[in-house]
């Protein structure tokens, strides 16, 4: 049977039974992000000679973090809520040559993981952070998140959300990420390109992907896909302030943490004859 080309990166079955399909809901944006990421990695392996063994996928906890589950045929780790970035930092201290892709969600990255979010970007560690932003906590039932728009009703804001939402890309920029892009799951080609550029960028790349959660938003995947297109505008085309800008928002490469640590090694050894 003709198979989806990215299944070559999936362990569909293992000694303990079937591993695929994943358990994400029908039409889940995180599932699409997995697809875009595998396409990006596949392109890099085929076109630039990147080694498959060098890729490491690390996730936190949440729906988007289920993407590193046991079906992914790469080195991977499904870690602690909010802590994928410090774990990635440690991996790089031991082996700076590994290409780390972090799958995270808006809650995982910006609530419990907020402190690590800003420091990983401040340090410009060489990591590609793919943030599936659905504006809520999907896995646990749709509760309010730091990215939920004001007035939204959720299981923990039954009378409406009284808080404002983070602009994650602005947060990442102020913190020091060297490559920042925002797209949506409704922009497959652009998202895949952005992920490729993020991986290629030496330094901290932040790719925010606005994503549908059909179950908790009580809409169909198709309705939400259309809505994601409607509420966003490419920054290349317009600066319509009523819409969310998507595109490459920031690109200012600078040395990574491990590159700068080389100067520490030099100084530490200068005084030893």
């Amino acid at each position, binding site marked *: *049977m*003709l198979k*989806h*080309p990215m299944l070559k990166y999936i362990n569909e079955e293992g000694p303990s039974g079937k591993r*695929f*399909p994943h358990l994400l809901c*029908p*039409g889940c944006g995180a599932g699409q992000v997995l697809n875009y990421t595998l*396409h990006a990695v596949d392109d890099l392996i085929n076109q630039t000679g990147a080694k498959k063994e060098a890729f490491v996928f690390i996730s936190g906890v949440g729906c988007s973090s289920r993407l590193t589950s046991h079906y992914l045929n790469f080195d991977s780790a499904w870690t602690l809520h909010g802590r994928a970035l410090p774990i990635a930092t440690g991996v790089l201290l031991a082996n700076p040559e590994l290409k780390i892709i972090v799958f995270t969600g808006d809650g995982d990255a910006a609530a419990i993981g907020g402190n690590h979010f800003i420091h990983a970007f401040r340090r410009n560690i060489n990591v590609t952070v793919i943030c599936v932003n659905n504006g809520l906590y999907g896995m646990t039932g749709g509760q309010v998140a730091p990215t939920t728009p004001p007035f939204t009703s959720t299981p923990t804001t039954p009378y409406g959300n009284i808080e404002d939402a983070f602009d994650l890309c602005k947060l990442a920029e102020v913190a020091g990420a060297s490559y920042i892009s925002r797209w949506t799951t409704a922009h497959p080609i652009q998202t895949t390109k952005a992920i490729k550029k993020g991986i290629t960028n030496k330094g901290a790349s932040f790719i925010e992907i606005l994503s549908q959660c059909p179950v908790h938003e009580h809409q169909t995947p*198709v309705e939400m896909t259309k809505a994601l297109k409607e509420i966003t505008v490419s920054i290349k085309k317009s600066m319509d302030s009523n819409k969310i800008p998507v595109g490459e928002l920031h690109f200012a490469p600078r040395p990574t943490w491990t590159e700068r640590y080389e100067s520490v090694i030099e100084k530490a050894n200068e005084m030893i004859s």
Partner: protein
Amino acid sequence: MIEIVINPNYCKGCSICIEFCPKKVLRPSNNINAKGYALPEVVDLDTCTQCKLCEIVCPDLAIAVTPKEKRGGRNARK
């Protein structure tokens, strides 16, 4: 010979592939899989341009389209 194959074990009937197809090759069907999801079906195979947009947007890697052949008869994707 172009094939569009929908994997009944993986498809969850979300219809995103139907929405994205620029040539409207796909439509919902009454074909329900073992998990109760309604799979898409091909309307007219000849209108498919093998753009593979349906493949790239599928959240479950459940649809596959024969790759375009390069000039000289080799597949576009290795």
